[in-house]
């Protein structure tokens, strides 16, 4: 049997090839670098991208995914060499450096041109007046309380002020049983404890570590916070090993009933339940200074998003950002991530199905997101400097005032 290619078949094949090639050429390929994909259920971010591609014919999204630290290094190098992806996942701590390198596009003109409703987003991160980042998903840091330890210690009312927190921590501490009221991770390896476990006390009371865009560490809010933390340490209610403790160890101690209270990311709720399904815990806002009745600042870490200044497809990149920030898509994404939404109208499904998340959502709604490290230059370096001074204070080498003054001097050199 012989097979002959008919001229008609050739014509059809040529037409099909031409059609495919033209449509491939017409497609805009967007590159999106982030660390989110490995942290989300397998295939879920890709599915969202597929939906976006279906809604926006002609745009294809390539996900470039990796762990957080690798992504950070990749973005730093990409910014320096002008090879940054069109759309980039951002941490607030990076944006100042990236902006200094002119690596991020200003999204103000894009918002104006598209008539974007700015009131729908929880925050827009600006540096030098340029809108460089939107927080897509926020992981807030409330106080986790071990309710069994609290009940055994006779803590009937969960603390709302710093004084009440100290009293509760004292009651929960039994050093002979390796049980402590609070846990403070100040490892220099990951100095984020400064942001999450120290400065959160300042922000919770509506206070600030900055004044007129400059550090104000010698001001009353920070000195009072350091004095309070020192009083907790002097009272022996803080789990030992502060100077080398990491966030992961903090969670382990809480999971193993070794600490009564910790400030931690809501993202860890499922991990805590998995590690100890019997653990009975509740969530409360970070306690405030006496007589404070205003709105509470809620420390948070976020998955931010921005556009590369070097991108040739900024219009398409802006479409992707609008899509991810839209009410329904944002709700879907943050539901997958167990995070709170970047769109104020989005309501993730877990807040109704899960009591702990529901409680945290109430805290989230009644307060405001606060993280003053977002947008600061070399944020991690600033945390390291503050960390060292706090460690010196806790080791008894200096007073809270001296710690604040030394940190202020170090920070000013970086501004």
């Amino acid at each position, binding site marked *: 049997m012989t097979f002959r290619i008919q001229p008609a078949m050739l014509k059809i094949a040529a037409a099909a090839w031409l059609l495919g090639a033209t449509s491939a050429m017409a497609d805009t390929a967007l590159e999106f670098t982030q660390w989110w994909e490995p942290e989300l259920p397998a295939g879920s971010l890709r599915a969202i991208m597929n939906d976006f591609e279906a809604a926006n014919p002609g745009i294809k999204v390539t996900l470039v995914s990796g762990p957080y630290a690798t992504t950070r*290094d990749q973005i730093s190098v990409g*910014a320096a060499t002008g090879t940054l992806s069109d759309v980039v996942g951002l941490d607030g701590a990076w944006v100042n450096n990236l902006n200094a390198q002119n690596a991020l596009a200003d999204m103000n003109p894009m918002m104006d041109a598209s008539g974007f409703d700015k009131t729908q987003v929880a925050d827009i991160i600006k540096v030098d007046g340029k809108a460089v980042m939107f927080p897509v998903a926020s992981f807030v840091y409330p106080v986790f309380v071990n309710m069994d330890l609290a009940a055994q210690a006779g803590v009937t009312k969960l603390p709302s002020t710093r004084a009440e927190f100290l009293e509760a921590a004292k009651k929960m501490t039994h050093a002979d049983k390796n049980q402590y009221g609070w846990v403070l991770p100040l490892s*220099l390896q990951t100095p984020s404890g400064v942001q999450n476990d120290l400065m959160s006390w300042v922000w919770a009371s509506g206070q600030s570590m900055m004044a007129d865009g400059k550090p104000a560490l010698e001001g009353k809010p920070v000195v009072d916070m350091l004095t309070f933390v020192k009083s907790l340490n002097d009272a022996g209610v803080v789990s030992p*090993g502060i*100077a080398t*403790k990491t966030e992961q160890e903090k969670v382990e101690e809480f999971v193993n009933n*070794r600490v009564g209270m910790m400030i931690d990311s809501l993202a860890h709720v499922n991990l805590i339940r998995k590690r100890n399904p019997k653990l009975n815990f509740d969530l409360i806002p970070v306690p405030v200074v006496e007589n404070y009745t205003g709105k509470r600042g809620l420390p948070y870490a976020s998955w931010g998003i921005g556009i590369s200044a070097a991108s040739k497809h900024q219009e398409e990149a802006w479409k992707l950002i609008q899509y991810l920030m839209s009410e329904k898509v944002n709700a879907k994404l943050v539901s997958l991530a167990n995070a709170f939404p970047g769109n104020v109208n989005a309501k993730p499904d877990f807040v109704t199905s899960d009591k702990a998340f529901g409680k945290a959502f109430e805290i989230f709604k009644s307060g405001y997101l606060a993280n003053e490290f977002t947008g600061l230059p*070399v944020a991690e370096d600033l945390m390291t400097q503050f960390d060292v001074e706090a460690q010196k204070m806790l*080791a008894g080498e200096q007073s809270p005032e001296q710690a604040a003054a030394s940190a202020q001097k170090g920070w000013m050199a970086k501004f």
Partner: protein
Amino acid sequence: MTRQKRSHHRLKRAVAPYLYLSPSLLIIGLLMLLPMVTVIGYSFQNSAVLRRDPSFAGLKHYQAIFADPVFWSSLWHTLYFTCMSVVFHMTIGMVFALMLNSDRINPTLRNILRVLYILPWLFTAVIIAVIWRLLLEPNGVVNSVLMQMGIIGSKVEWFSSPETALHAVTFANIWAGYPLFMVSLLAGLQGIPKDFYEAADIDGAKAYQKLIFITIPQLMPIIISISLLDFIWTMQVFPLIWITTGGGPIYSTEVLSTYTYKLAFSSYNLSQASASAVVILLISLGLTLFYIRYQKAR
């Protein structure tokens, strides 16, 4: 053979070795020499890597790190960590090698000990760091045992106290590194002719005299070679210190490698980090040259 053919043949013979060497020279050039030269270049630039058009900085970044007291304390910690590690690696390695080479120990027990003693070598730096963090944490096994034995009265924060952290991290490194010495010295011990010891026995030499006058001199080339290599490697240890203490508390375990890492990835000051890396390179280079000269002299 014509003169032309002869000169062509001579040229081929002269070029041939270089052609054989070229793949490895290319790899060394690309993977070692090029990054090294690039880092040296960065150390003389302002905003290296972070700017596309960095300006020339001269010796500014070297001056900055030499003026930083944390750099000098890091250098001191590096020397303490390295010297103590090398001395104890050598001492423990020698003791264990002598034990494993001794006929007085039952062969079965000797084989079991051989496996046990070499175990630390099988673990990666990360595993070693995690093991020692768990053992030395305030509520860990070490404190518990020492308190029960009455050696300490209260929990010691081995890695979290500025007084003990450097010693603790050095101890962990000693534990991790002695098998290299042990294995090398054991091989050396097995190569010493038995005649030397028999002659010494006839002369009535005691055990310690045989050790001092036969064993150690015979092992000296191995001891010096391995000590120099260990010195160079230990100077550059990073993961163990980073994971156990992160250079803290209060810079008490900051060594040159963690100091450089923080400059690069915490401060994003890649120019100063490069200058610091060049200082480490120069120290290592000095030791390497010493090692090469020693090897040549042998």
